[in-house]
């Protein structure tokens, strides 16, 4: 069951999941200040998705 849930949510690249979780934590932290925080998650997607995809492509090559 734990393996199934891990595969469902975390998937093949745990570093991607960890990076996104960290971005959510940063969003929470910045939201408690007067600075805007909406940009953190789009930026995280913009950075982490290409990194993960390119890393996988390099491994398979």
């Amino acid at each position: 069951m734990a393996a199934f849930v891990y595969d469902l949510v975390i998937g093949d690249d745990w570093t991607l999941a960890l990076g996104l979780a960290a971005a959510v934590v940063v969003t929470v932290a910045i939201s408690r200040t007067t600075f805007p925080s909406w940009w953190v998650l789009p930026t995280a997607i913009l950075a982490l998705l290409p990194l993960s995809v390119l890393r996988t492509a390099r491994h398979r090559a």
Partner: protein
Amino acid sequence: MSAGALFIAVFLACTVEAVEATTIVLAAGLARGWRSAAYGAVAAVAVLAVVVAALGPALTAIPTDALRLVIGALLLVFGVQWLRKAVLRAGGVTALHDEDAIFTRKLATAQGAASHRRGTVPDWYGFTLAFQGVLLEGTEVAFIVLTFGSNQHAIPLASAAAGAAILLVGAAGFAVRAPLARVPENALKFLVGVMLTGFGAFWAAEGAGARWPGSDAALLVLLPGIALLALLLAVGLRRQEGARHRRIAASSPTRQAS
């Protein structure tokens, strides 16, 4: 998010999962008999309905911001993983999802297994194959229904969208008695990955206390932006894969000669 948008998002996501579950049920039905496969599929749907009915009201009782943060973050991680796989398939790095090939493999395995009756189930193997297939694919359906439905306080509507997708795909699969290979599954997976990622990021940020510029209208920029990023990555990977194959083809005569 309007009721129509919620319905379409959940319907599309559940259609993809329903196509995969239908392939397994068809293999079980054709190889082992329809009665056992139908029992297995109905039993799995019943288990999933109980899960949604039990967790749904509990989730909607959680304060909206906390719910959006947790559910949004889960949906974001789930969605980005889904999108990552779709990009790798579209870029030619991993094989495209092929329902015909999956069906052939499942059918061959099911035909070779021994048969035995258990209770009112004529063939236990057929029942188990259909039950596991529908339960595994259906768990993702339940996850999508619960995340989208609880965030919008519209679990009945999300359940109706999932039910419509399952009924439509199930009826089509039963009518043709063959895997629904004509459904553009890989394109749908790409689209669903974009939606899950976009809505996940939007809700997680809102739950964290962020205020999006333009409020809900930000989705009109966020979703196309994610789609564009994914498309650019897929095109880049396809070019890279093409160049790699050309290099391999060019170097193989040299290797043979040496």
